[in-house]
């Protein structure tokens, strides 16, 4: 390859990379907007904590209470991609009813990774584990959540929109009120 050819290849590569690095975040936005606008809403019971991501800042680490499938008939290896079928219990909360290697023909599902099996529970890694919050309200949110579960009636719910195997968090509610609103109310109360 002569010098001119090398320069041409280098330019083509640069153009491809320039387009790719612009396309990836745009695609992420498009996919997220599609799920948010057209997806079905599910409510998961969660237990949040407040750690820190060095790249993306403060977030609440959300652990979905039922991050497993009970009595799953199939065996998977750790890290294997599978599809968790979503169902709703009598109170309207979402849970995972089945794991399969192929997307189910009907009903909503989420593309997940299998982690390991613990007795009759097949644990899965969900694509929503984080809820990013403002650095200012994060410590308050953390304090709030630390004392939140003392009353058994308290309920922390994650709102998740689901469409074609993709899941997107649309909010985190404490006893039916968005966490941002609860924290703001508490901060206003404390400042008085």
């Amino acid at each position, binding site marked *: 390859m002569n010098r001119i050819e090398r320069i041409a290849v280098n330019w083509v590569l640069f153009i491809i990379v320039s387009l790719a690095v*612009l396309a990836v*975040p745009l695609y992420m936005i498009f996919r997220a907007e599609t799920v948010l606008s057209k997806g079905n809403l599910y409510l998961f019971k969660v237990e949040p904590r407040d750690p820190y991501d060095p790249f*993306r800042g403060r977030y609440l680490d959300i652990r979905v209470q039922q991050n497993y499938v009970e009595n799953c008939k199939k065996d998977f290896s*750790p890290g294997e991609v599978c599809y968790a079928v979503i169902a709703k219990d009598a109170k309207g909360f979402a849970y995972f009813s089945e794991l399969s290697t192929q997307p189910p023909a009907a009903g909503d599902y989420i593309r997940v990774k299998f982690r390991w099996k613990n007795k009759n529970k097949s644990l899965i890694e969900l694509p*929503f584990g984080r809820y*990013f919050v403002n650095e200012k309200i994060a410590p308050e949110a953390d304090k709030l959540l630390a004392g939140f579960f003392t009353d058994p009636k308290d309920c922390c719910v994650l709102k998740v929109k689901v469409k074609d195997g993709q899941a997107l968090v649309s909010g985190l509610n404490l006893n039916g009120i968005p966490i941002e609103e609860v924290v703001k109310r508490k901060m206003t109360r404390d400042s008085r």
Partner: protein
Amino acid sequence: MASKKSFINWLLGELPDLERNGIIDEENCEKLHAYYSRQIPAGINYQRLMLIIFGALSAVLVMGGVLLLVAHNWQDIPFRIRLSLAFVPLVASLTFGWYTKLDDRNQAWQEASAVLIGGSFAVVVAMVSQIYHTGGMIYEYMFTCLLFTFPLLYIFKGQAYLLLFLIGLTIYNYASLRIDSVAYSWMFLAFVLPYAVYYILKELNSIKMQFICNILIVFIIINFFGFFRDCHAGMFKAGWAVLLPAILFAGKRFEKRGLVLWKNSFLVAGFLGVAAFMTLGSIESFWSGGVSFTSNLSETGLIVFSSLLYLWMLFQMFRLKESSLVIPLILPLAAVAGILFDSEVLVRYLFVLLMVIYGILLIVKSCSRHNMPLLNLGMFLIAVQIIIQFFDSDVPILIRAAGFIVTGIAFLVTNIILSRKFKHVERTGEVLK
């Protein structure tokens, strides 16, 4: 290099005097001046080097600052505006990159462009995943960043970006343990290796090559576990028994190609690694646990990788023709035999024997080359082995004490005698017996 350069400078300074005193005529003076001016070796351009380093460093700092701004999580700003703002650093970096390429700017610009584009892509992905609460685990985030930015290595040929990419790959390797397939780690390694190898061979003996070698050695050693994460401990030990001698062999190859010792990080790391592994191997408990093979991707990969590396070492043995390299070549066989036969005692004594023979071979080689550092390395290996055996066996404390004293004195006396002999040989040109 430095002495040749200073000698030529001295000679060029003398020429006018020689001409003035009639020793050489004007024509010869000009010819000599022209000839020796061309002979001045191209030294390191420190100004240019500083420019490259600070160019890359400024880019890293700018991107670090933008990342921290993102990490602040600006929820007070409406999310559409936040989304638009997320693209500002990326578009600005791409424009900077286009300008660098169009104008064919120097290395500092190339370094800065690669770091800025790679960094701003990481920022925009972080910001989008923050706004939509997506992106999940840190390994998934690193996966996206690494996958779409590796061509920047080849486009801008930047070393700062290579360093950032390897750091990113290390984070990915360890963040994805037990979650993601090891095949992805290998895929990223395959992306970056051709670039690193190309530069090592192209820039041999330059400061660039030294930089790449240093970061590559640290990367290989830190990430060896990450690349073969699902291996049984016994297999992992066997893997190290191949990798460390291979690093030493690579260092020997560079030495043959004229790379000086202080720049040859492969040789230094290889020797220290082999010495450390032989020391550990001569402790019985190191070999407990045996081995089991589950034929998963990591273990199969380790076997293929180690076999290829060993074949390469065999090939290099014929090219290098150095008797002392026989020991590092036998080392993997001894480790594999010990692990396969599950005999801790056998493999331990095999390692003791190998380390002592290696020490003796280095001492013999040092005598023929009149090389004091080599002599001390050989003696160091034997001394380490004596100390290990004293601690690892039930020898009474008085005998241990005497043993240490004798070893210390022997070390000192041999150094004095041989250094005198080497000096004598250098002065007289005699052959050392």
